[in-house]
């Protein structure tokens, strides 16, 4: 078992290392570079030799492999280089923006899970067939809505038409309501779809018929037999959903003008700030890999089939 864990961690590290290398190479291949974009601006009045000095300070002129090794070493030490636009260490920028995004993502994810669970169970237990199929259709609608447009529509409806939520200087929690909804909708859709499909599949299993034959009601069967079997496989998409959460944060924070990792990402793409992008990409890959690793290692706790058999199984 411990051998499996070590192997699994090694695989995760390998993925991370390749992701880092790919991000590094990709951004080295950039046609423009951030130093030039920022300092060649004539208004700053910097001469060529001053720019050259700056370039040396940022270390952009050394050979590629040296830059790569240095960047890798720095990354391992938690030093992600300097953000050119912000003129502060990238790690500082990330840390400064992390809490806001974490809060948004945390609430968004919780709401998404609630919505997905609610839809999936309603789609199974709702009283009329037409109502069940209507509820089943909701996730495919959610999945087809552009996130940025959803945010704008929410602002348009709740802030401008109904004037329920103020756009200008909303309270700390008030300002979070619409972004959280915007973020939750696209995350809840795939979750609800997978849940609904799993519930359908599990419901056709013979053990469900056996439970019904014991005299169990449909509600009892759904709760005691179908639920756990249907929920387990959704754990495997936790990593993907986490990535979607980050991507959703980029758009949501842009639409609502919030500060956070997402807004930071959007700005650094606009100004081709390579080191920030690199850090964000590697950070999100690390989160993805970590979430998947945790899910893999915890899976046997939830699924007895992956546990070692106890006693004789003859």
């Amino acid at each position, binding site marked *: 078992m411990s051998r499996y864990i070590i192997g699994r961690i090694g695989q995760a590290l390998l993925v991370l290392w390749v992701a880092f290398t790919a991000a590094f190479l990709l951004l080295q291949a950039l046609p423009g570079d951030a130093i030039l974009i920022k300092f060649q601006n004539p208004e700053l009045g910097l001469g060529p030799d001053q720019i050259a000095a700056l370039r040396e300070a940022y270390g952009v002129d050394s050979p590629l492999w040296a830059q790569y090794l240095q960047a890798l070493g720095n990354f391992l030490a938690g030093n992600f280089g300097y953000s050119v636009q912000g003129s502060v260490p990238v790690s500082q920028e990330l840390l400064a923006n992390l809490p806001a995004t974490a809060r948004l993502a945390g609430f968004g994810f919780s709401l998404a899970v609630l919505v997905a669970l609610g839809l999936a169970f309603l789609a199974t237990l709702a009283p009329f067939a037409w109502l069940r199929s209507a509820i089943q259709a909701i996730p495919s609608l959610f999945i087809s809505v552009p996130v940025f447009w959803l945010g704008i529509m929410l602002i348009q409806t709740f802030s401008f038409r109904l004037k329920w939520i103020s756009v200008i200087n909303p309270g700390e929690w008030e300002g979070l309501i619409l972004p959280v909804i915007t973020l939750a909708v696209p995350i809840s859709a795939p979750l609800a779809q997978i849940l609904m499909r799993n519930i359908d599949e599990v419901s056709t299993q013979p*053990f469900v018929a*056996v439970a019904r034959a014991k*005299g169990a009601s449909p509600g*009892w069967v759904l709760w005691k037999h179908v639920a756990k079997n249907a929920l387990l496989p959704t754990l495997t998409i936790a990593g993907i959903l986490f990535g979607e959460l980050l991507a959703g944060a980029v758009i949501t924070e842009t639409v609502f003008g919030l500060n956070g990792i997402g807004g930071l990402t959007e700005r650094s793409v606009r100004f081709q700030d390579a080191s920030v992008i690199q850090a964000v990409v590697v950070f999100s890959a690390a989160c993805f890999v970590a979430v998947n690793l945790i899910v893999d290692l915890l899976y046997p706790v*939830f699924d007895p089939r992956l546990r070692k058999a106890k006693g004789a199984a003859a």
Partner: protein
Amino acid sequence: MTTPLLSVENLSVAYKEGDHHTRVTHEVSFDIAPGEVVALVGESGSGKTTTAQAVIGLLPENGRIEQGAIRLNGEDISKWSSKRLDAIRGSQISLIPQDPTSSLNPVKTIGAQVGEILRIHGDRDGKVIAARVAELLARVGLSDPELRARQYPHELSGGMKQRVLIAIAIALKPQLIIADEPTSALDVTVQRRILDLIDELRRENNTAVLLVTHDLGVAADRADRIVVLQGGHIQETGEAKALLIAPQSPYAQRLLADAPSLSTTAFREPRPGGGDAIVVDGLVHEYGLGRKKSFRAVDGLSFSVKRGTTHAIVGESGSGKTTTVRDVVGFGRPTSGQIRIDGTDIASLKGDALRQFRRKIQLVYQNPFSSLDPRQTVFSIVEEPLVNFSGLDAGARAKKVNDLLERVGLPEALRKRRPRALSGGQRQRVAIARALVLDPEVVVLDEAVSALDVTVQAQILKLLDDLQRELGLTYLFVSHDLAVVRQISDTVSVLQDGRQVETGTVEEVFLRPQSAYTRELIDAIPGKRSLALA
């Protein structure tokens, strides 16, 4: 006669497909007296399972009762609400399902699943439930019931799981148990023990049993009365013994004649047979299990088959049959030992030499649903081997394929169809045609008739026999079903856990079995009891 416990009257059930209803049972009527065993016997599509599902009120969502009544102790329960039925399901009528592997919830313990039926019907005290669960598990013959209660389904064998399901079915001492093919997914020896257990328990509590089965042998052994269904219509109802001795309806007569386990035909006439077509010598096959560990699936198998004869390999699941087949046809590589087909050691062949050699030996698979490419037509499936070893032009190929399709009894109209639009028997005919189109010397039949209904099985067995006579084919016939083996083979090897426990002519092995295991296998053939009585 006492009032019947269950009385099914003119029951018609229909399934909704698209926007019309298709009836699958037509005015089915029968009674079950208290403590009586009634068998519903029929082939696929006969409506036997549907009838059983209707009785316990668990038709699939698209099914509905169109007419008729189901009376339990005189009261019609067919129009009861699901909620009202919940109260009698489990307590008065219970179910032993078909496939034990998927009939237990994989993420709940055995104890929780047995205890559940007690909880649903009102028990609340955890200690009382746990004690009763242990008692039940012990009653169905599971050793160490406290441990079993804490285990999960995947830690138990198929037979043990079926015992657990039986424990659930008898927990509340119901008046009626519906046993839906309770043993068709189990090995024959296990099947016999499970059926014995059901018999014993129902006698103890005077429980009536509705036994649903495709196997007339099982029905004959276990039932008081038999109801024969075909295409949703009752063909015949009668006392089990009377029906076996003198079936009245043509369909029941045919079913009886085609059931291998009930046939009383003599052993095959010995065929002349030439030199050795297949020689297997000291075959060993090991599978690696992680580092250092390995599992010996086949351990020292030796037999030889004379040209133009049939050799059978018999064994239960895990006996090494499948591994042997794969090595013989060259898909697997034996760890040691020799396999000579027509003098050539197949294990020594590689690459194109192996490909060329495949003309001599062909395989027919167990499952006619998965062994044909769903996108090809019947014609192109059979033509493909000829294309691979092209010596013939398109016209000559077409003639050969058409002749062969006619020979295996496939009408011309089917040749442009895809496998999906064929019945199981038709598909297996296509597979046989594909195997024969290259004029091979050896045909390996891997459980080739096991998935087919008995009447279809009998037709395919007859076809195989005719083809062997005409073409001088050598068959290697792999099966779990001794009754079929007895009918079709000349010689037989019996495998148990990878070892060959017995080999010889069919007559020797069946009449004078040397090993205890072979004796057990032969005794387990259903229908034995009733044959002895008849």
